[in-house]
């Protein structure tokens, strides 16, 4: 849980809008990123900006229209704001059953 303590200790006031949040990866995105999860420092204000930043940084290939976003375990729109300490997941097309 040490990593989470670090997240909640951020952000430092006056740190120019940089926040830290947790991103979880599943399926295609987990393969492409090579990680189950990571703590990300970002200036993104919403989920869409965050995905575009991560896609550019790590070569994530799934288009936004094939994904849905969950923030803190709730599915939300792409323009939903992200905050320090959030857990953000970009969900690829689901294939249960």
């Amino acid at each position, binding site marked *: 849980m040490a990593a989470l303590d670090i997240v909640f200790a951020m952000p430092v006031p006056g740190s120019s809008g940089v926040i830290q949040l947790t991103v979880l990866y*599943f399926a295609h995105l*987990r393969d492409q990123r090579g990680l189950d999860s990571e703590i990300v420092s970002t200036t993104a204000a919403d989920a869409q900006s965050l995905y575009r930043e991560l896609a550019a940084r790590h070569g994530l290939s799934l288009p936004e229209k094939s994904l849905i976003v969950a923030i803190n375990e709730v599915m939300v729109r792409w323009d939903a704001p992200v905050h320090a300490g959030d857990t953000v997941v970009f969900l*690829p*097309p*689901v294939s249960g059953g």
Partner: protein
Amino acid sequence: MDDFALTNQSIDVVAWRRRLDHPQAGGLAIFEGVVRNHHQGRAVRHLDYQGYAPLAVRTGSEILATAHGRWPLLVALGCHRIGHLDIGEAAVWIGVASAHRAEAFAACAWIMDEVKARVPVWKRETYADGSVAWAQGSVVRLDPPG
């Protein structure tokens, strides 16, 4: 015990079936999805499922609650397996109990369709030649029907 669960163990279909017992029930409809050895003409060796557990449980529970609102159900339950599954193993189990069969059949089929469309679980197929691929899947829609 939750009405909808995600498990990395074999689904205990006997235990789940027992939870459908209800003195007012006249019909039980159960769907058990199992791993088949082929997909679109290719021989499948085994499957691996990933799931986003907290959201899968929440979404599955919402589907069951919606089903309760649409049909006069006595019990509605579901379970999805994650991890490594061999041919013939149960990947998903849906069970419904109601006074009469029509609503049990209808609700069970509807719940399974919704689980496939909305619960954050992903299936990776390993084929006989050793190659792997994520199943095509469904893009999740944000606003489910009431």
